[in-house]
């Protein structure tokens, strides 16, 4: 599969909106040796993003000078943003200790999301639920480990399941809700928020782009040209909007990760 398969999706005479097939990427080299079949477009982009984050942090913070120059300026602004908007408000005094994790999480996810609007690549990797779920499971395991380490095995589950100040009989009814909400639905909603936003955004962009291509290039008619122009303009507007949403979702994911880490470090009151 290659990039134009999206644009050629409506092979008949009628326009067909792009569907789920735009997320299915086979091996990049289907004719290559079978040990190379793991290399698909998403895995390639993930590797690229990892390298990008490493390069960015390297350029920004290796050999940092007192008077910042070049990339170090950007890196310091980014560091201050994550520290003052995520780490310190959510984690308080522990915030600075968790900065390496939060910084790299934020930028890894941000780059992975922004790949959705980078020409040629055009795939937000997090629109495959496997990737957000792995991030969410990492945070979840860390939360469980910290909680059991800091509050004790019994204490952690007691703090989680039994909020103080309720009549005794209600605990029997409400404890299952708390347990399910904190242990199962937390990582689920954590990852689905990111996944659903990227998925819908990519579908939206692909839809408007294919409308523009279909009505302006493939089947250019007098009546259809208006629709095509609208699709073209919407593609541009939506690309800007997606840039914003992608940054916002990376921010929210990091914010929630910090919040879950905090709930492991200290019992909430």
């Amino acid at each position, binding site marked *: 599969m290659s990039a134009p398969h999206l644009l050629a999706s409506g092979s008949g005479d009628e326009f067909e909106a792009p569907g789920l097939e735009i997320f299915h990427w086979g091996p990049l080299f289907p004719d290559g040796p079978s040990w190379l079949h793991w290399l698909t477009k998403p895995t390639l982009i993930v590797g690229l993003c990892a390298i990008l984050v490493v390069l960015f942090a390297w350029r920004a913070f290796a050999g940092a000078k007192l008077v910042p120059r070049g990339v170090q300026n950007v890196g310091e602004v980014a560091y201050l943003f994550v520290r003052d908007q995520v780490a310190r*408000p959510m984690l308080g005094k522990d915030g600075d200790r968790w900065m390496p994790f939060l910084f790299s999480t934020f930028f890894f996810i941000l780059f992975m999301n922004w790949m959705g609007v980078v020409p040629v690549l055009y795939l937000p990797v997090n629109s495959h639920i496997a990737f957000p779920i792995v991030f969410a499971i990492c945070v979840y395991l860390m939360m469980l480990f910290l909680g059991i380490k800091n509050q004790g095995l019994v204490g952690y589950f007691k703090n989680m399941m039994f*909020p103080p100040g309720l009549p005794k009989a209600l605990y029997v009814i*409400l404890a299952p*809700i708390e347990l399910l*909400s904190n242990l199962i*639905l*937390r990582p689920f909603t954590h990852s689905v928020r990111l996944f659903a936003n990227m998925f819908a955004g990519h579908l939206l962009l692909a839809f408007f782009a294919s409308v523009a291509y279909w009505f302006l290039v493939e089947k250019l008619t007098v009546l259809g040209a208006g629709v095509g122009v609208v699709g073209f303009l919407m593609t541009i507007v939506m690309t800007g909007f997606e840039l914003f949403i992608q940054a916002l979702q990376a921010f929210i994911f990091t914010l929630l990760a910090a919040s879950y880490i*905090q*709930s492991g470090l200290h019992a909430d*009151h």
Partner: protein
Amino acid sequence: MVRPAMSEEGHRPDPQESEDSEQDRIDSEHRGFANAAWSIPSYILSGMAVYGGLGWLLDRWLGTSALLPIGILVGLALALYLVFHRYGRTS
């Protein structure tokens, strides 16, 4: 009331310290609000899942069909009660 002078001179808080604790208080309130706002959907979903699931199992056992919606509504009400109890108190 007994010794008013004592409370005025006894512990004058260090301005630096009081500023820090003020910032901590604001931070912890903000944290509570953010945690609450993000966890409300998962509370409601889990309430509906637990009691809706119970209703579904009872439906299959008893051969009825009304218990699933009833269970979902009951779970919704209980989850809302839990949310109100947890986050609705005046701190």
